[in-house]
């Protein structure tokens, strides 16, 4: 499965939850598949989906899912020790690991080679780390959201992209409606 197929499959699971979505094609795909006020689309700032979602999870009680990418986690590896050492049960980090910088044309990342992000997360002190194959993600993600324990999911999948438009929503509109959804 490629990322857009995964997002289509998990859309019903994440629909009612606060989601912070990675820059580039992941946000464009989620926006196209199931736009919700509970989605915070990153329009820039590669690497910070996990940090933004984690700051949000620490600051209110609702479940938060950060949808991140392998390339973006690699660029902000420092996020994993911070998450591990400040654990909060309402947080799920979903790393869609397609082994490539998908949004920029599928250049290979080191996560698709020798580097295991799941092993890195464990070494950083994350206690619930699950590596899962794309087709098995749904139930694992649902269980992570339902549980009171913070979970890091590394979902291994194929690289590949679909053609789709950019997000033209104004960032302040995205942020405003997201904050209203957080409060509601």
């Amino acid at each position, binding site marked *: 499965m490629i990322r857009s197929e995964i997002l289509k499959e998990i859309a019903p699971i994440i629909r009612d939850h606060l989601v*912070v979505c990675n820059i580039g094609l992941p946000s464009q795909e989620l926006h196209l598949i199931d736009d919700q006020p509970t989605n*915070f689309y*990153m*329009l*820039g*700032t590669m*690497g*910070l989906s*996990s*940090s*933004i*979602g*984690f*700051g*949000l*999870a*620490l*600051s*209110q009680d609702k479940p938060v899912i950060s949808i991140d990418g392998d390339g973006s986690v690699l660029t*902000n590896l*420092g*996020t994993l*020790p*911070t998450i591990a050492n*400040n654990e909060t049960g309402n947080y799920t980090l979903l790393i869609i690991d397609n082994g490539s910088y998908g949004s920029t044309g599928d250049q290979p990342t080191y996560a698709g080679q020798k580097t295991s992000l799941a092993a890195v997360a464990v070494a950083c002190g994350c206690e619930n780390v699950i590596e899962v194959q794309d087709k098995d993600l749904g139930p694992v993600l649902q269980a992570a959201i339902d549980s009171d324990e913070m979970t890091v999911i590394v979902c291994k999948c194929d690289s590949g992209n679909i053609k789709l438009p950019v997000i033209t929503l104004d*960032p*302040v509109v*995205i*942020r405003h409606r*997201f*904050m209203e959804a*957080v*409060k509601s």
Partner: protein
Amino acid sequence: MNIDKKIVDDFVANEISFVTTVPCKQLAGVIQEVEERDSIFHIPSNKEDEGMGLCAGAFMGGKRPAIIMQNTAIGVTINTLATLTQFYRMPLPMIISYRGELREPVACQVEMAVHTKALLAQMNIPTYHFHWQSDVKEFDNILKYTFMCNKPVAILTDANFWGGYGDQ
């Protein structure tokens, strides 16, 4: 006056409850003070752009955030300031130790000091420079200003403000 205490008192008075830090020798006292306050959640970050991401999330979660970092971090955070904090219009007070100014013992620090104000000006970031201890009186107003206008705001604090470097 204990400036560490005054700064953190002003945080508390302005309902700042989420503070991320990357240390600088000059900031040790204020970081310690943040750590000791019950009404503030202190989360050290590994890199300042990561810290700004945490602050963005905290703000959207209903908390008032702040970051404490060294001026060298301006070189680390330009992209995040532009594409996250400014693009989405989020408030962020940044207490910045202004290394490489008068009384600096480490030559390398001067290399970023000479760029610091120019970079902040280029970014249109409102910037205040505390040189005398009495300058801290303005801090409460700066915090109110930051959360009024929803912008990142820099407070540069130099060695003279912190009382020099002791015997080194």
